[in-house]
């Protein structure tokens, strides 16, 4: 696909770098490279990839370009869903949500990981990571249910806070304008801790000699964080960006449950994913559903491409 040429280039760059450091075909590299187990080890994974990655994807492409009887439909399915009055609002909803969520994720996760890492007292740092991760156990429907309680002023633990913002009823809280932020908060609440742990691990992997050398050169903690730790986290931040973008375009369970709990104050076609679901299972139009899925796919791939090229995800070492 479009990703192949440039990532080849990225790897070539990386292996050139390696070559210059280690010399062409260092013994270690060669010894491992000769082993035939590569094929053996990747075959089961390759089979699963074909069954649940490639085949369904190609099937989606085929569906998107055919009509209900299997005849070639050209772009008909695409024009149909794009002209759907529910399409552009859904695009807007997901976009705003993604912007808020990704910004919050990158800013706070990296910040918190650096701060937690800077805490010198071991048990404090362990406790912090534990508490931050704890909500990670509640994902999917569970986390949305919990947030239904939090957002319902009649029972909410923060009803005082909601009241101070002038929100006295559940319906007031879930006004359309609030939803992207609400979904971003739910997603951040459940997901941020896992990434904080991963970033923390990456920080631990930065060799102490590098940090020590910087300190001897007179760098203070903030300078070390910004000039050394942050650049070395780049790959992980890019990784987080790609994964979160992929997950974010899938927005489904949050609006779905909120719609169910609010007697459709939140529409059941709020997100693109829901719209695709409506097409497939309410309108029995799998071709339309596939067209939406394909649009989502292309957009996610294009946006992720930026993260991949910027973050150097494919550089080894």
């Amino acid at each position: 696909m479009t990703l192949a040429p440039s990532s080849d280039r990225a790897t070539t760059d990386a292996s050139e770098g390696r070559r210059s450091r280690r010399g062409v075909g260092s013994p270690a590299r060669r010894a491992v490279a000769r082993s035939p187990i590569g094929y053996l080890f990747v075959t089961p994974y390759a089979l699963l990839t074909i069954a649940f990655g490639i085949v369904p994807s190609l099937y989606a492409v085929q569906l998107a370009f055919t009509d209900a009887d299997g005849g070639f439909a050209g772009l008909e399915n695409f024009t149909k869903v794009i002209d759907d009055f529910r399409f552009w609002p859904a695009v807007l909803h997901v976009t705003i949500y993604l912007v808020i969520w990704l910004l919050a994720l990158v800013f706070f996760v990296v910040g918190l990981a650096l701060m937690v890492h800077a805490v010198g007292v071991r048990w404090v740092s362990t406790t912090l990571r534990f508490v931050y991760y704890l909500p990670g156990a509640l994902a999917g429907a569970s986390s949305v249910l919990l947030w239904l309680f939090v957002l319902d002023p009649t029972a909410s633990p923060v009803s005082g806070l909601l009241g101070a913002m002038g929100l006295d009823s559940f319906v007031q809280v879930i006004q359309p304008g609030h939803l992207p932020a609400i979904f971003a908060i739910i997603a951040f609440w459940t997901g941020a801790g896992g990434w904080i742990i991963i970033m923390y691990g990456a920080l631990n992997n930065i060799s102490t000699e590098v940090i020590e050398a910087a300190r001897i050169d007179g760098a203070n903690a903030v300078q070390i964080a910004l000039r050394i730790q942050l650049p070395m986290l780049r790959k992980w931040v890019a990784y987080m960006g790609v994964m979160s973008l992929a997950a974010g375009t899938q927005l489904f369970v949050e609006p779905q449950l909120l719609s169910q709990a609010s007697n459709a104050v939140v529409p059941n076609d709020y997100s693109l994913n829901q719209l695709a679901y409506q097409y497939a299972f309410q309108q029995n139009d799998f071709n339309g559903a596939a067209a939406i899925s394909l649009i989502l796919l292309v957009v996610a791939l294009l946006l992720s491409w930026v993260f991949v090229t910027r973050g150097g995800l494919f550089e080894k070492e």
Partner: protein
Amino acid sequence: MAALSTERRRSSLSGWSGRSIIGVLLVVFILFFAVPIVWLLLAVTKSSKALVVDHPFSPGSWSAFAANWHQLFDFQDGAVTTWIGNSALYAIGALVITLLVSIPAGYALALTEFKLRQALLVLTLVVMLIPSTALVLPIFLELNSVGLIGSPLSVILPMSFFPFGVYLTYIYFSTSIPRDILAAARIDGCTGFQVFTRVALPLAAPIVALVAFFSFVQNWNNFFLPFVMLPSSDGYPIQVGLTSLLAATPAFNPSSAGSDSVQLPTLALGTIVSILPVLIVFLFSQRFLVAGMTAGGTKE
């Protein structure tokens, strides 16, 4: 040594004010992450009236907890028990396959050369980026055509395809395992397979735990896939079952007030029960998670 460098780092932090800002931020986020959970734990010990009237952080009583417990597990003749059993079957089944498949694959991608290696890597990333509808609906049709819809396999097999785990393993093996160690093992006479099982795998214990953990959590919490694949309530995992509970809760769905209706504290208890296994696994894996990504082969 560690203590010494820690001391130095702390003293070089930008002074008292800098440290207190960091402290405040860390505490604010503790509240943000913890308050809803603490509230939820207290909510299940209250009657539905006490939940609304009493202070949000006041404890309830054992009798109220027992009443909620009975209401939850009596719901639709013990549907909750069935759902939990289903979740366990799906999550553990997929977890086992995921580990058997992902760890060797990540190792091979990172440390061996073979044809199509680069293609498989790119493919892994691409597939990770594909939004779930793009796959769930076509997978639904694919499995429908082979007659698997409604069977446990219709969720277990797609869930065991876990490119995230492969990628995590790949990153770990390509960044944290020095090739010199593997080369040394080969010089000592290990076969390619032994290098993997005796050297790489033990070193990768933290990443195996991490992949297992993420896989289990993701499988257990998966909503959309089972929502589409499993038409009958008997086959629901608990996450999908929660929607049935929610639909029967008059507070969020006024039309549901009836004989089998669910009160708010019972719904809260359902939420806790739905995540209990993940919580337990989390407590057990915490040591791995903390040691987590840190273990490197040659470090110190």
